[in-house]
């Protein structure tokens, strides 16, 4: 029954996230409030990793499957995607290359600079 307790804890965090979402008028999905809340609970030691780890890891592993219905829903938006196919393709390829280069080069520069300093 330890899985049930873990599921109850995760459901409670999810419910708390929905309550926060209800009161905070920002365009932020409830899952983000929940993510930050769960992180704070773990970090402060109120929750131990073992108390949610099994069910949590199961949910994380299942995540790609949980996304299948949302991506199949593209069937309901076929006319819209035809209209914006070009920007989608440009961002999908060129945008990805740009982000990879910018993030990689800047963080590499910062890590190396820090490394040189600590060698001095």
């Amino acid at each position, binding site marked *: 029954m330890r899985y049930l307790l873990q599921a109850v804890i995760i459901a409670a965090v999810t419910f708390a996230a929905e309550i926060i979402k209800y009161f905070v008028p920002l365009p932020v999905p409830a899952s983000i409030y929940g993510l930050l809340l769960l992180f704070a609970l773990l970090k402060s030691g109120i929750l131990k990793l073992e108390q949610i780890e099994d069910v949590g890891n199961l949910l994380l592993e299942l995540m790609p499957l949980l996304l299948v219905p949302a991506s199949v829903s593209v069937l309901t938006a076929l006319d819209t995607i035809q209209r914006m196919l070009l920007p989608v393709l440009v961002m*999908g390829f060129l945008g990805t290359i740009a982000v990879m280069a910018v993030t990689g080069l800047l963080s590499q520069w910062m890590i190396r600079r820090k490394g040189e300093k600590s060698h001095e």
Partner: protein
Amino acid sequence: MSDLFASSAFFGLLLSAGSFELARAVNRRMGREVCSPLLFATLLCCAVLLLSGTDYEIYYESGGKMLEYLLTPATICLAIPLYRQFALMRKHAGAVLAGCLAGVAAHMAGCAAMLVLFRMEGPEYITLLPKSITTAIGKGLSQELGGYPAITMVTIMLTGLFGAVAAPALLRLFRITEPMAQGLAIGASSHAAGTSRAVELGDIQGAASSLAIVVTGLLTVAAAPLFAKLGG
């Protein structure tokens, strides 16, 4: 056949999970990931629905919504890898934050360029904003801001597949050799799909990549509403 499917309460669940498992079985057989289970399952589900003339609604009501129901708690559990990698984050806090922030800025600038270049409409432009982040957060964000979540999903998947395939060559091209920077670059640009490739490059790359997913996701959630105003 569509009537038969409509009378079942499990059709959508079986179709989704079955096609997903089929892709995983192929990958196990080949000894490496030859097809993304999410992409394969999406294509197979779409094909079955189109060929049998079944409405998306029938699929959604008979299992699709059950899977989607678990997505919020699953996304919340991304706090677990974040918690595990906090030590790594702390050691390189500056590089992680600056790198991911610059990546998000580059992405938002790209979206703004698309808005002008293709004279996109507001909702279409908003659809692109969550492109680089993990599908779970991206779908919710697109919904919140008033984009087309389904198209955001397709764009995110395209990004992930391309990132996963091209990452090693691109990292060589840009001479990004620091393991930590390699991981951050992959995670910030191509989320979980890219991370599956980062894990193959090494442990540090894998950890840095999954860290970048969460950090980039959070930064995008913070920045996207501001950039969404450009399209309004």
